[in-house]
């Protein structure tokens, strides 16, 4: 317990900060620096827990998305005038794809635009997967506000049980051998015992939770009020979406209204839960620093100033967790028995 990891919400604030920064087209160099920064933070701060793999997976998926974007951009693009680099042969397509032409001249302007857009999406993917690689989901679920508690508990139950079911799938596979079964694909013979096992477990768990006082303090009045506010919030957002799509003035107002209602609804619903929390996750200076740099990052990029000074500042703000975040220690080691 000597070392702790950064609060998962701080990691998410950091990741979202990078994602928002990337979405504001800060320039190619800044995007590349953001990716490098995210990678630096992930590799110096990640744990050896399974979710730490998220970043590597994110890089792979991001690269695939980038490549698809480039390929489509090159062979299916609408020509824009400029410096022709090379010309691809054009291929005719069947009737139902009429009007689309594969190939044609490829200009350097085209390549540049496509690459920047692809890179933006790549950075976005990277930012989210970096946050999910660093934030401990179990601690995150535990830190959810009271209003999300039920959802959090369902997910805590499932995250705890996943390893159990993975071993139980292995066991059931072995059991097939014991029945002399040589069929190669036998979904039913695996699925039925697994489901029976898990349903029995659900029954036992339900009664254990009931008899341990779960749901003791649920009152419904505040909740019902909160739920009406939430309904008006979705209505406002739906109106906002319609206005936005139809390009009618007022979408922003509707969205703003929706968000305010959402916040109020959350607040009201949250007040109606009377649960307490045992040893809540710590939120200290390091967390504040990370959130503050994240906000600074976003406000910096909103200036739309692509000077080299600005770009460097983006990079430095993006890697701020390197300086403040403690490295996740391995306090809960699996203890073999």
């Amino acid at each position, binding site marked *: 317990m000597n070392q702790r990891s950064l609060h998962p919400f701080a990691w998410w604030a950091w990741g979202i900060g990078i994602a928002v920064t990337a979405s504001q087209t800060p320039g190619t160099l800044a995007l590349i620096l953001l990716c490098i920064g995210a990678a630096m933070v992930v590799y110096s701060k990640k744990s050896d827990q399974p979710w730490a793999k998220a970043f590597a997976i994110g890089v792979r998926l991001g690269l695939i998305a980038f490549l698809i974007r480039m390929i489509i951009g090159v062979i299916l693009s609408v020509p824009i005038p400029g410096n022709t680099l090379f010309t691809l042969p054009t291929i005719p397509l069947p009737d139902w794809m009429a009007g689309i032409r594969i190939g044609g001249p490829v200009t350097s302007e085209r390549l540049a635009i496509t690459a920047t*857009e692809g890179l933006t999406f790549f950075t976005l993917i990277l930012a989210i997967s970096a946050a999910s*690689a660093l934030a401990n989901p179990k601690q995150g679920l535990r830190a959810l506000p009271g209003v999300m508690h039920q959802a959090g508990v369902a997910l805590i139950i499932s995250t705890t049980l996943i390893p159990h079911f993975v071993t139980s799938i292995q066991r059931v596979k072995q059991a097939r051998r014991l029945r002399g079964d040589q069929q190669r694909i036998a979904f039913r013979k695996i699925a039925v015992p697994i489901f029976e096992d898990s349903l029995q477990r659900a029954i036992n768990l339900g009664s254990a939770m009931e008899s341990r006082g779960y749901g003791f303090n649920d009152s419904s009045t505040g909740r019902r009020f909160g739920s009406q506010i939430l309904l008006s919030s979705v209505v406002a957002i739906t109106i906002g979406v319609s206005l936005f799509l139809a390009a009618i003035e007022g979408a922003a107002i509707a969205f703003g209204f929706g968000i305010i209602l959402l916040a109020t609804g959350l607040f009201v619903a949250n007040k109606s839960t009377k649960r307490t929390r045992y040893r809540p996750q710590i939120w200290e200076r390091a967390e504040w620093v990370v959130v503050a740099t994240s906000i600074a990052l976003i406000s910096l990029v909103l200036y739309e100033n692509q000077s080299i000074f600005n770009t460097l500042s983006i990079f430095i703000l993006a890697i701020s967790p390197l300086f403040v975040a403690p490295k996740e220690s391995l306090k809960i080691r699996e203890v073999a028995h």
Partner: protein
Amino acid sequence: MKTMNKSTPLLGFASIIGFFAFAWPLFISAEQVENNGQAKYLFLALMPIALLILVIELTQGDLDVKSLAFLGVLTATGAALRIFGAGAIGVEPIWFLIILGGRALGKRFGFLLGLSILFASALLTGGAGPWLAFQMMAAAWIGWGAGALPKFAKQRVEITVLAIYGFFAGLIFGALMDLQLWPWLVGADTQISFIAGAPILENLHRYLIFHFLTAMAWDIPRAILTATLILVAGKPILNSLRRSMRKANFIPAHEMKQKAVL
């Protein structure tokens, strides 16, 4: 004698937001064309907000202890099947689970199950990306739909219908995910990009070409797999779900408001 559940309107509106978050390129008007860049990000942000509201509403109001336990345990089973699935059973048998779970435990439970399975497995196995909220919403609809299908007198009919439903659910999920990626993967200026303000059908045509060129080849095996799994193991699993609900005296509070009076 079904009464409308109080969370129905919210579910409806949030789903409308979700639908537009997927399909906005088909509907956006030409005047918003300069805002294209923003639209992508706007809807990327709206989807998690819609999900947040949904989750709060569905878990705060109606979820009793048993539903919660079933939800947690089935989510774990689904995520375990997903982790394990790749090697042994085939590609992601989670659709099978979401559809049967929604079928046996009702549409609202199916909705939640879709959300939680995708969320839990993405968080724990990596693969969480900007698309996660979209995957969750699509999976939730699939679970809801399985619960909303009418009752069938014969179980054989039920299984067949579910298999067909599973087939189309597999295709539609792929199509929705690709629709969501469309503006990101092709930008605004290729021959298969959407044209803001163009008739819906024209944009749909362009989208289908994009879908055909990119991901459709992956959707068909998934659709076939889901349908096959339902045909092979649907009956025993559905029966065991229903049997354990009886055993636990479990009527999801979502589905029926009157309590068994003892």
